[in-house]
């Protein structure tokens, strides 16, 4: 009897103890430094946004954030690491365009949006078409006419096979019923440089990347692939206004491993929200040419699912 009550007391103690531990864990997230996985190399656009985010989010998360570039496999190495990390919120990942495109374009790509809990979307610049100011092509209509007159002759520089810029071009070409040649580059930067050097006719790039080139007239933007006038560029017609509906711009957001506890997700989402509202963060992002475009939690989740499907359609158009 005495013995039994002793055991019961011990069990109760253990139970409350473990409960207390769980509660403490939930309350104390983050209990150690948070790792922000960037699946691409130092110095790229994703790296830049990731590092700016980490810098400001630290203030709002109440804990250290360290950035780790886990590169390789067209993002597969980093995404897989982030998706397979312990689901306690201490490893978060930059969830970017490649995660929506690669599952459709690379055989055996091991991850997709389904492997992540959506934390927040940070930016979603649409794709644009840009030409050299002396190219003689001054509108989308002129471009389509030229492409029809010389099938297969016009060269379109993209950020590489299966990138959103390539898929945008393919979807556009299908809708316009034109035959063009894609010239893959190692990222949009080199594609823009090639257009500026007149080595290719047209560059397809993200609006954020092309804005500085457009602003000082080094390149002329012909169209912006969005149906949201707020996301456009002043004085540049939207592709939807000319009858083309292509909506697979690039995006950058934050995800946590699937199955992360609701408590940790809440802390992460709150930190993301405060960061996205931080005027210093917004100003910093805008200085680098990226306007914040923000969604949180489940709202970001369904947005991500739509993107995944849109990229699937475009990949079919690109015959990948």
């Amino acid at each position, binding site marked *: 009897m005495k013995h039994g009550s002793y055991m019961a007391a011990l069990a109760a103690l253990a139970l409350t103890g473990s409960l207390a531990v769980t509660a403490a864990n939930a309350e104390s997230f983050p209990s150690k430094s948070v790792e922000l996985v960037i699946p691409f*190399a*130092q*110095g*790229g656009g994703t*790296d*830049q946004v990731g*590092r*700016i985010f*980490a*810098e400001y989010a630290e203030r709002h998360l109440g804990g250290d954030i360290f950035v*780790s*570039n*886990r*590169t*390789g*496999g*067209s993002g*597969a*190495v980093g995404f*897989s690491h982030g998706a397979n990390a312990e689901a306690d919120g201490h490893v978060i990942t930059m969830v970017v365009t490649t995660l929506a495109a690669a599952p459709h*374009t*690379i*055989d*055996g790509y*091991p991850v997709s949006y389904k492997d992540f809990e959506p934390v927040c979307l940070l930016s979603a610049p649409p794709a644009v078409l840009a030409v050299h100011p002396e190219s003689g092509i001054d509108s989308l209509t002129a471009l389509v006419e030229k492409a029809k007159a010389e099938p*297969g*002759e016009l*060269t379109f520089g993209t950020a*590489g*096979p*299966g990138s959103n810029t390539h898929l945008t071009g393919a979807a556009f070409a299908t809708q316009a019923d034109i035959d063009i*040649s*894609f*010239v*893959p*580059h*190692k990222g949009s*930067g*080199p594609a823009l*440089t*090639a257009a*500026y*050097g007149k*080595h*290719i006719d047209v560059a397809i790039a993200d609006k954020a990347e092309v804005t*500085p*080139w457009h*602003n*000082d007239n*080094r390149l002329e933007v012909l169209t912006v692939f969005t149906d949201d006038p707020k996301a456009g560029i002043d004085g540049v017609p939207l592709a939807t206004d000319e009858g083309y509906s292509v909506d697979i711009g690039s995006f950058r957001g934050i995800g946590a491993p699937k199955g992360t506890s609701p408590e940790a997700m809440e802390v992460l989402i709150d930190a993301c929200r405060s960061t996205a509202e931080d005027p210093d963060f917004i100003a*910093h992002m805008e*200085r*680098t*040419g990226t306007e914040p475009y923000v969604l949180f939690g489940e709202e970001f989740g369904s947005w991500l699912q739509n993107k995944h499907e849109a990229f699937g359609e475009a990949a079919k158009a690109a015959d*990948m």
Partner: protein
Amino acid sequence: MSLLMEGFSIVLEMRLLLLLSGAVALGIVAGSMPGISATMGVALLSPLTFTMEPLHGILSLIGVYCGAVYGGSLSAILLGIPGTPGAVATTLDGYAMSRQGKPGIALGIATLSSVLGGILSTAALMLLAYPIAEFALAFGPREYLALVVFALTAITALSGGSFLKGLFAGFIGLFLASIGIDETYGVSRYHFGYVMLMGGISFIPITIGLFAIPETLLSIERIGRAPRQVLRVNRIIPGRSVLARILPAQLRSGVIGTIVGAVPGAGSDIAAIVGYSQGKHMSRNPERFGTGSAEGIACAESANNAATGGSLIPLLTLGIPGGAVTAIMLGTFMTHGLQPGPLLLQSNAPLVYQIFAGVFIANLLLLVFGLSGSKLFARVLQIPESILTPTILLLCVVGAFAMRNNPVDVLIMFAAGMVGYIMVKIGIPRAPLIIGLILGPMVEGELARSLIVAGGDWWALFTPISSVIWLLVIAPFVAPLIMKGIRYLKQSYKTI
């Protein structure tokens, strides 16, 4: 000119000078550690510059950049391990000279050459930035293809005694380079379903493994045998005759490095390779290259540091980042609300001249640190091998891992080490393998792009600029034949 003077007076202000010195020193340390490249050093520092004044932030990054490219030569010369990919060519002659008991002189030559190359490219940046930028802009896929093939022919220069063995090593490198997803059509090759191999094999762990592991194994072999001679570093500055002999090589490599650095997409690694192989072809003593030639060190080091100034040319004048390092710098400029490009000189002329002055001073700081620190650096050689060897091993593991935070890279590093050990034992040169690995994907990508832009017409690959480079590619192979032919004709003329 007054703007430049004003620039110097601002950069020489104590606080900024201290910051720049700190950045250069930090860069030297980062560059000398295998696996921590100039790109990584600059990327790690860049968030810290967000809150600085624009000039301070930009010059910090430039200081780290110049320091890291120079620092790569320290471990190359002292330990036979290139600290950065740009120092692979330096390893050949620098380590050989160091083993001949002259590590101080080797460091001295590397320092003087780096500084001269850096200053030459800074002068080009100040005086000829716009014409050079226009020229660099003319480099499309066809010109770049020719340039990369030109660099690939350096395998002949880096092969040491046996060209066939060098070619074999080069092909291994090209094969390794073909692993992963190709950048033209997205086809994946040779990864056998392993995600880790999908992204291809990074050349940093291969370089570390290939060069560092054999050294550690060889030092273990030496244990219990004759004690290693303790090297005393007395001289740093080489004699006047050596200085006179290497000056033409330094100047030529400085020009090559500046131009290659200015071409978008090419960096200090390609600059050093091209500089070294041209140096060997032009040298009066080509047979000494690879055996501890002062000229060899001069060619590689002058070219790789000249590429730093060269890469700033398209960045500042056209707003085009030529590579990863200048891409990070572009981000830093924009963070401070500055847009590099043709308008920067108009809207922010004082800042541009302050940057010019800063790059110049950063190179002078390399001279100060290099000459005053060489004796200290060379003390590494006095550390007993029982401590030095495990320390190097540890640094290798850290370096291989840090590149991509990928444990597989550590395994790749050790595997490359075993291969490297066998290569040393059977006399196959290792540098050509690295050349193949670095240049393989570039050759493939540029060829694909060239053919797409040319509409599949192979003859269209020969543009005016690319034709000149193609001539340079075949010159070393054809020239001896022509000379033979002329001699033969002369002979037969005499006999008639």
